[in-house]
């Protein structure tokens, strides 16, 4: 894997074997692509989740039913099926998505459906006395949801939403089935070319582990930043 070269001019030099040079170049390229998929998908998923979660909790009968149906469909069908429909199925009705946009759209919609469930659960867990307190001061229903209920619900939903982002990082590897060359896709190409599956996929696993660890670190920082002493315990 590693060659050590000792020369009078440059001293001791560590050089990767040609296979590993090619592997890491490909994986790093794939990593950049994966990050480019994950960040907008995670942000879009949270946004859709918050909107759908609120509408599923506070919307009128029709809106509530529509959002429940959306969540049921995207939670109830495999992500790979959703991606195939977006990429291979939509062209039948004249909608063409690039591999990147097919993947991002699929991830956002799937992640949003799960996020909406975490948000809905958190909204329902806020005691009625919080909205009573707000309404008694003259807050409109909308104001009490925006300024009192959602800020509390977000704190309760954060661990669940963070968990969904961790899942998203891993299922972003499915983008390669719609021909988008991200981390897993790049690795698979090299593994097939050299027939060295074990080491290639072990290294890919480490890349994902690194990404997930980073995400967990960021989520912990956010959790610490919005921590309120004793919140949810009384």
């Amino acid at each position, binding site marked *: 894997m590693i060659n050590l070269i000792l020369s009078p001019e440059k001293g001791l030099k560590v050089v990767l074997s040609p296979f590993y040079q090619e592997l890491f170049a490909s994986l790093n390229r794939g990593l950049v692509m994966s990050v480019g998929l994950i960040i907008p998908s995670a942000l879009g998923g949270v946004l859709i989740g918050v909107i759908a979660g609120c509408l599923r909790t506070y919307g009128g009968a029709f809106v509530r039913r529509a959002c429940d149906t959306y969540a049921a469909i995207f939670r109830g069908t495999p992500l790979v099926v959703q991606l195939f429909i977006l990429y291979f199925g939509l062209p039948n009705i004249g909608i063409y998505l690039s591999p990147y946009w097919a993947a991002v759209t699929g991830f956002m919609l799937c992640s949003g459906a799960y996020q909406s469930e975490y948000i809905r659960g958190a909204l329902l867990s806020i005691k009625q*006395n919080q909205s009573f307190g707000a309404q*008694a001061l003259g807050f409109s229903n909308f104001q009490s949801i925006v300024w009192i209920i959602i800020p509390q619900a977000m704190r309760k939903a954060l661990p669940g939403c963070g968990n969904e982002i961790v899942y998203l990082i891993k299922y972003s590897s499915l983008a390669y089935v719609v021909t988008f060359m991200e981390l897993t896709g790049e690795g698979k190409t090299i593994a097939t070319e050299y027939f060295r599956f074990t080491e290639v996929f072990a290294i890919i696993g480490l890349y994902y582990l690194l990404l997930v660890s980073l995400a967990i670190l960021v989520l912990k920082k956010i959790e610490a930043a919005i921590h309120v002493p004793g919140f949810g315990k009384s």
Partner: protein
Amino acid sequence: MGDPILRVENITKSFNGESILKGVNLSLGKGEIKILIGPSGGGKSTLLQCMNCLVTPDSGKFWLEGKPVDITHKQELYDLRQQVGMIFQEFNLFDHLTALDNLTIALRKVKKLSKKAAIARAMIELSQVGLADKINLYPAELSGGQKQRVAIARALAMDPKVLLLDEPTSALDPEVMGEVIDVIRNLAKQGMTMIMATHQVSLIRTLAHEILFMEAGSVVEQGQPDTLLVPGSRSQDFCDKLNFITGERP
């Protein structure tokens, strides 16, 4: 005497077919203090919650300073609530905000004050209830008495014309009850118009301009303490029982 500050007429409310309020009429003149007493389940809390429509009554008419209020009209309803402050048994402070922010958020979002003006106003009210040194603490870091004082300061910061107090001391242990009672007595001295449900006999006797005894959704006795708290009345009998439980001397 001018128009009552708040008048409600024929308030009714049922839950699951059970009638909780059976046509209650009530009016509060400026500076008047009325006290609601009666057994639990008699409709005291529901009446107070209906008076600012946190619970929507099935029927009833509202007047604020002589003007009829259409509670089906959202803005009129929000204005009514802003002018009719409410103190809850369980305080209902916003758990995610500090004591100071519990006051400033309503001043900023409802009264549309600037951040600076809201903080200045909140500081005045928190100082009045003796909590100027606790402004940065969250509800979970305050004692029950302190929470209730923050809640009172929060309601007062909105300049309410009337305060509805729903058993403001019943969730407190006896050691901190006194600090909340003192704040309520001060409000009475300053001429605040109030209607309060309470089981505190000392408050009933010393503060009430009028006592209303509620039972099974109706006001069954009503009158000034001198005329109502006499042997044989339902109200006196109830106060005697409270005295027996709390050990207070009549």
